């Protein structure tokens, strides 16, 4: 693999609920290289967003924590355990994040220009006027039409797609190495989705960004991902190059996800929804977390937890049944 910019090792994030700590993310390993898009796919509650928030150092401190032994390295710098103040120098500058809801993720009482300019001001130490000019340049870059005029407008005067462009401008204002995108297109119309995706793709190529793209939409994955990590109940169950994953899903859960996805070349009647729900983080048994919903589950799957094992062809799989395959 080429130059890795973000490397997550054995990340465990726990939340307190009813007096006890429960892991919402368990032992996640990830690596993102420059100019690469890694997609994390999974259902709601699988721990995708929590993983991204942990990288940003935004796990809510009053009821959440990153467990000891976890490591998040940005190039050669360890982020776990950094003080709030040191973390503020990293986030928004070297790692940036865009969120799902462009309607609520922008401050309604500040102009768009101020919101983009303030991160430049904070991280580049630019004077207000210079920061304002820089914000204009970035808004131009993300193709907000007549950016100069629109900078004094407020978020509610923008459409959903334009707001997401503003979010992207805010994130990229300081030219970070890594962009975390948490379902950035889910709330948008399909046509606008495509525009925003291709914008992210263009910017990735232009700046050599490492992109962590969180989504539950496999169609989006097919469009933009170089590699895919499938998450289930807080764990990664399979990683593979995107085309390999679509071509030959190995984990029963990945397989089930793919057959539950509508496709133009198949009849809607052939869709197979996955039975049951993602288990709550409070009642995951000793075995494989997917076992209760898995058609292939055997005795061992229920009693013993499989680990994520690398395969010879550069993929990784967490499954007792399929793990023995090449």
């Amino acid at each position, binding site marked *: 693999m080429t130059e890795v910019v973000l490397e997550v090792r054995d990340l465990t994030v726990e939340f307190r609920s009813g007096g006890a700590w429960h892991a919402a993310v368990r032992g996640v390993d990830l690596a993102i290289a420059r100019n690469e898009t890694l997609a994390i796919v999974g259902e709601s509650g699988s721990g995708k967003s929590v993983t991204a928030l942990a990288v*940003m150092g*935004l796990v809510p401190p009053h009821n959440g924590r990153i467990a000891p032994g976890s490591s998040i390295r940005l190039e050669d710098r360890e982020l776990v355990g950094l003080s*709030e*103040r040191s*973390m*503020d*120098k*990293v*986030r*928004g*500058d070297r790692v*940036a*994040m865009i*969120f799902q*809801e462009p309607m*609520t*993720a*922008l*401050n*309604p*009482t*500040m102009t768009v220009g101020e919101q983009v300019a*303030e*991160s430049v001001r*904070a*991280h580049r130490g630019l004077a207000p006027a210079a920061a304002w000019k820089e914000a204009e340049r970035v808004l131009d870059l993300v193709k907000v039409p007549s950016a100069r005029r629109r900078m004094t407008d*407020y978020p*509610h*005067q923008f459409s959903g797609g334009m707001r997401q462009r503003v*979010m992207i401008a*805010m994130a990229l204002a300081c030219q970070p190495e890594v962009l975390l995108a948490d379902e950035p297109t889910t709330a948008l119309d399909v046509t606008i989705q495509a525009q925003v995706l291709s914008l992210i793709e263009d910017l990735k190529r232009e700046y050599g960004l490492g992109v962590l793209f969180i989504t539950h939409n496999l169609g989006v994955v097919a469009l933009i991902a170089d590699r895919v990590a499938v998450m289930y109940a807080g764990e990664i169950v399979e990683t593979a190059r995107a085309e390999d994953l679509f071509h030959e899903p190995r984990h029963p859960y990945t397989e089930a996800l793919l057959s539950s996805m509508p496709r133009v070349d198949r009849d809607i009647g052939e869709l197979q929804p996955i039975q049951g729900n993602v288990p709550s983080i409070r009642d995951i048994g000793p075995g494989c977390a997917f076992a209760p919903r898995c058609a292939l589950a055997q005795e061992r799957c229920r009693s013993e937890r499989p680990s994520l094992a690398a395969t010879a062809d550069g993929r990784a799989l967490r499954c007792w049944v399929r793990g023995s395959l090449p």
Partner: protein
Amino acid sequence: MGEFLLRRVALAVPTLLLAMTAVFVLARVVPGDPALVILGDQASLEALAALRERLGLDRPILQQYLDFLLGILRGDLGRSLVTGKSVWAEVLAVIPYTIELTLAAIVIGVVLGVPLGVYAAVHRNALPDTLTRLFSLAGLSFPAFVSAILLLLAFAIELRWFPVISAPKVDDPLDRLRHLALPAFNIGLIMTAYVTRVTRSSMLNVLGEDYVRTARAKGIGMRAVLWRHALRNALIPVATVVGLYLGTLIGNSVLTEIVFNRPGLGKLILGALNQRDYTLLQGLMVFFAGFIVLANAATDIAYGIIDPRVRYK
């Protein structure tokens, strides 16, 4: 913003008209003949008729209503029956005291209440938060006249830091401040209690918003997140409380002005009640109604300044 201002002020006109009509009707439906009430039941019929004529009560009701409205339009609120001075003159003589008391109370309430509320919200459920909540509950539970007496006992009688009776020398600003301090704190601390509570709960709401997380993700520092991003959005309910408080000001300032023996609108209204100064009362009601309508308009305009979405609707 200009158009928004115009629209909001225009909206105040019908409200004002309604309030004036209410004052007019109220004064007429109160049982008993005003002339009889003023002069007492020993008065001669001639005297009663003369007074009715002076008050315009002998004219048809619609005529009275029109005269009343036209009078207000000309800025004529009538004359006091007791002193013979115009209501405006009576109001103008004391209003600087009330304005200075109100402004001081609001400044104390906002300057103390907003930071306390923010602090409590950031440290929610920790000790400082509990203390702040306890303090604000105490502030809300104390009637203004009780706290006024306690303040007087402690700071004027025991410690002798401040005068017991407020009769400031008008042209000595320091002396005025000294006389203002206790009454202003009396109302200001109640105001602080309100503002603290509202700021705390509204900050708690805002801190859970997505845009606060976005702001944190920008790495601009917690201080900027709190004061630049969160507080402004949290201020709308605070503006509402301050605006509403202007309305309850009459009650609180009456009590405070009596306990501290301070001149002001409160004492003026009390005097009018005691002396059955019917025309002064009606004039004061018009004045207060107008004041409250304007205070509400000012509150709405404050919303517009805080939240751009209000402006463009």
